[in-house]
């Protein structure tokens, strides 16, 4: 049973460019959350998708947007990249139940130069 898969694993972009990261949730999971983890920090919540809609959003600017598809997979888009956007981007999936633990993928390492 495949867990959460993310692509690509690494990415290098230039300031001002746009990037799209992809995530396939664990089988049986319907909710996808995205987190940003800077070096030496804990993951910071970006947003959560359920039934193809953004259900909750953290304190991130509108440059960060997302999408969930009918098969529950998800994309994270970041426009007008800044140096400070360099981080590990983690996707986590869960079942709808509130106390269902999040299962994380291994992330996409984004470097902005």
């Amino acid at each position, binding site marked *: 049973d495949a867990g959460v898969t993310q692509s690509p694993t690494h990415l290098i972009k230039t300031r001002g460019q746009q990037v799209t990261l992809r995530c396939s949730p664990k089988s049986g999971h319907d909710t996808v959350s995205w*987190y940003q983890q800077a070096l030496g920090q*804990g*993951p910071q*919540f970006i947003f959560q998708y359920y039934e193809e809609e953004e259900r*909750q959003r*953290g304190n991130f600017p509108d440059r960060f947007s997302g999408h969930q598809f009918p098969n529950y997979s998800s994309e994270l888009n970041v426009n007008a990249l800044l140096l400070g956007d360099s981080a590990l981007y983690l996707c986590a999936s869960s079942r709808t139940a*509130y*106390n269902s633990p999040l299962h*994380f993928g291994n992330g996409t*390492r984004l470097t902005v130069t």
Partner: protein
Amino acid sequence: EDQVTQSPEALRLQEGESSSLNCSYTVSGLRGLFWYRQDPGKGPEFLFTLYSAGEEKEKERLKATLTKKESFLHITAPKPEDSATYLCAVQESGYSTLTFGKGTMLLVSP
């Protein structure tokens, strides 16, 4: 003000030397407290969920406990393979998202 504070930031132990990691939290209503393990270059791996004060969960050499203001992750007779960053996260009532602490980096030497 941070909602989740973990201490110490880093901990070095000798193999077999037991210790505890601390996670203190300030949320109005706790729905659940989660412990994760994260290896370098990998995503967090789920360990435990605790829901109410007094609850305890165990897995191999790890035991997690919860009070009304903090949680402890006790590591008994650790082995080098227990070396990792341990993350604590809280889930508030009415929300399904997690707020993480900065983690404790544990290094166990043989």
